[in-house]
């Protein structure tokens, strides 16, 4: 077990190294001229060269990569080209905002999802199962921006009970005005809720078909007791993993949801970095997001192994 975790951690480090090379080469080497893209097409050769020197772009790529990597390992990602602030504290603040949003969405969606999934799984083939299954399939397939925009249409512009955008002051805590969290959280929640429900349903169905559940029922134990004490704990194993994997899905969701609601989180910062060609910011955000994603996957794997003794590595 320990060996497995160590191996997975080693792979995480290896992955992050590859990812850092990819991120660095994509943002620094390939588009070639970061300086020109900042100054615009009309800039003179001299001004481009001057800016390149200021940014250190005249040095060889591998040297800049090593510098960047060591800086990044110490939390120093350089300075944003457009916002003129250090990247490190900026992404940390935005990360906090995004975590608040994602955390709320998870906290609300998981209990609902498990309840719905268990109901659908126990009533397989019945009308309530069909309703839940079709509803969650729609939830899985809807793009977040469509859900978000429809919610704005209903709750902000028609009913006027919730704000349409979640703009915040730079140092504002998102919980200081909970109203701005509601619509983005609900949008984000819709997708993860659907995934978790479907997963719970599938595993509930397979657990209810196992021999030990049948034995428990046949020896006369009350149905409710069999479901709650015998079936449910085992059915929840894959669900726990899927919650960890959900964090990965949420990252994609956050990029879109934060853009829809102008919520100042990591996702919105990513889009801003990309549209502004803000190279240091782009690198930092991409590395951080990939790290979170890879780490969430690692947690999912380890949890799955711990919870399922039949799998041994």
């Amino acid at each position, binding site marked *: 077990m320990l060996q497995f975790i160590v191996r997975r951690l080693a792979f995480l480090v290896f992955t992050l190294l590859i990812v850092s090379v990819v991120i660095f080469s994509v943002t620094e080497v390939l588009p070639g001229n970061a300086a020109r893209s900042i100054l615009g097409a009309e800039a003179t050769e001299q001004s481009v060269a001057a800016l390149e020197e200021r940014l250190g772009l005249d040095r060889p790529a591998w040297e800049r990569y090593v510098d960047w990597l060591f800086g990044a390992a110490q939390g120093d990602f350089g300075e944003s080209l457009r916002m003129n602030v250090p990247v490190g504290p900026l992404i940390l603040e935005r990360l906090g905002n995004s975590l608040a949003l994602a955390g709320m969405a998870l906290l609300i969606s998981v209990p609902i999802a498990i309840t719905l999934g268990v109901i659908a799984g126990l009533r397989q083939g019945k009308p309530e199962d069909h309703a839940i299954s079709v509803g969650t*399939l*729609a939830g899985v397939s*809807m793009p977040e921006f*469509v859900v978000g925009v429809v919610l704005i249409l209903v709750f902000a512009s028609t009913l006027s009970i919730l704000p349409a955008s979640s703009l915040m002051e730079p140092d504002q805590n998102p919980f200081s005005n909970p109203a701005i969290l509601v619509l983005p959280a609900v949008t984000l929640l819709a997708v993860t809720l659907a995934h978790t429900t479907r997963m719970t349903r599938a595993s509930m169905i397979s657990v209810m078909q196992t021999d030990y559940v049948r034995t428990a029922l046949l020896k006369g134990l009350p149905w409710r007791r069999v479901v709650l004490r015998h079936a449910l704990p085992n059915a929840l194993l894959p669900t726990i993993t899927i919650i960890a994997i959900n964090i990965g899905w949420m990252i*994609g969701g956050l990029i879109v949801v934060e853009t829809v609601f102008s919520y100042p989180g990591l996702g919105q910062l990513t889009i801003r970095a990309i549209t502004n060609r803000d190279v240091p910011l782009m690198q930092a955000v991409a590395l951080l997001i990939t790290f979170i994603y890879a780490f969430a996957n690692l947690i999912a794997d380890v949890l799955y192994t711990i919870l399922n003794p039949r799998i041994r590595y």
Partner: protein
Amino acid sequence: MLYQQHNPERQRALGGITVHHSTIAGSHEHGHGGQPPGEPGPDANASYDYGVDDTETPSVFRQIIRTPGVAIPGAILLMFLLIAVVAPLIAPYPPTEFHSGRSYEGPSADFLLGTDQFGRDILSRVLVGTRSIFLVSFSATAFGVLLGTLVGLTAGYYGGKTDEIVMRIADAVMSFPSLLLALFVLTMFGPAVINVIIAIGIVFIPRVARIIRSVALDIRTNQFIQAAEARGERGVYIILREMLPNAWPPIIVESSIRVSYAILISASLGFLGLGVQEPTPDWGLMISQGRNVIAVAPWNVLAPAVAISALVISTNLFADGLSRILLAGGRVEGANE
């Protein structure tokens, strides 16, 4: 030449996607029957049966027709496809035509779904927008599934070091969240339709490769592969002529699922402003622009939102049903994004 036999369990050690393998391999138990009647089988003796019972299985097409849960979304998809083909003929106006002085008009006899900020007809733009979403999602899926299948079959067939290296690279690529990877590729190449296709294709390659590899590991254990090896066939021949024809059911299922993801990602990229660019009509972009005027001209958002919802839901229902028909038990939910 003898190749090392593979232990399918080993795949689990490679990372989170454990459920997949067991589903596809699980249907192994159903035995290796002949091809179901009506199913064209390129290699009659070499059928690899994914749980399609050959005793009384009607053709896949009949099964689709008989299952309303698949036939109805299938019909809606066909309708969208038809619209994509004939859109310029049935659109009341050219989708990029400006009508000056008629911006943000509500639905009327002139403009059935209203107009946008330049007075362009929204109905025409939604109809013609079907084209770009089909073009992008189908091409991206074809690109990603083609390369992913080749990579997966090669890794699964050769095994050993090749497999190890290929799958580790795939794992590393998959450690980028899909949307972020697509955004990155687009940042590199700039926003253009062909680049959106490449970006989504690149996102798909490792994910498809992983699934097809697990299928290949199973196909590899069949005697006809050993027979081909004994005949002295080359690896390329075995992969393309012996393995590929037997991997069709999972490839088709994977493609149908990938199309629905491709629609989702391309629409999201359009919304983020990095997909199809103005003045080409694109649903995601229309919603992004309409969001700013949602209070005064909600029809700008509603029409593309309804279109995209109908398309993604029917694609998903169809893919879901197809996987139930082609692979016994269906594809395990949510295991691969």
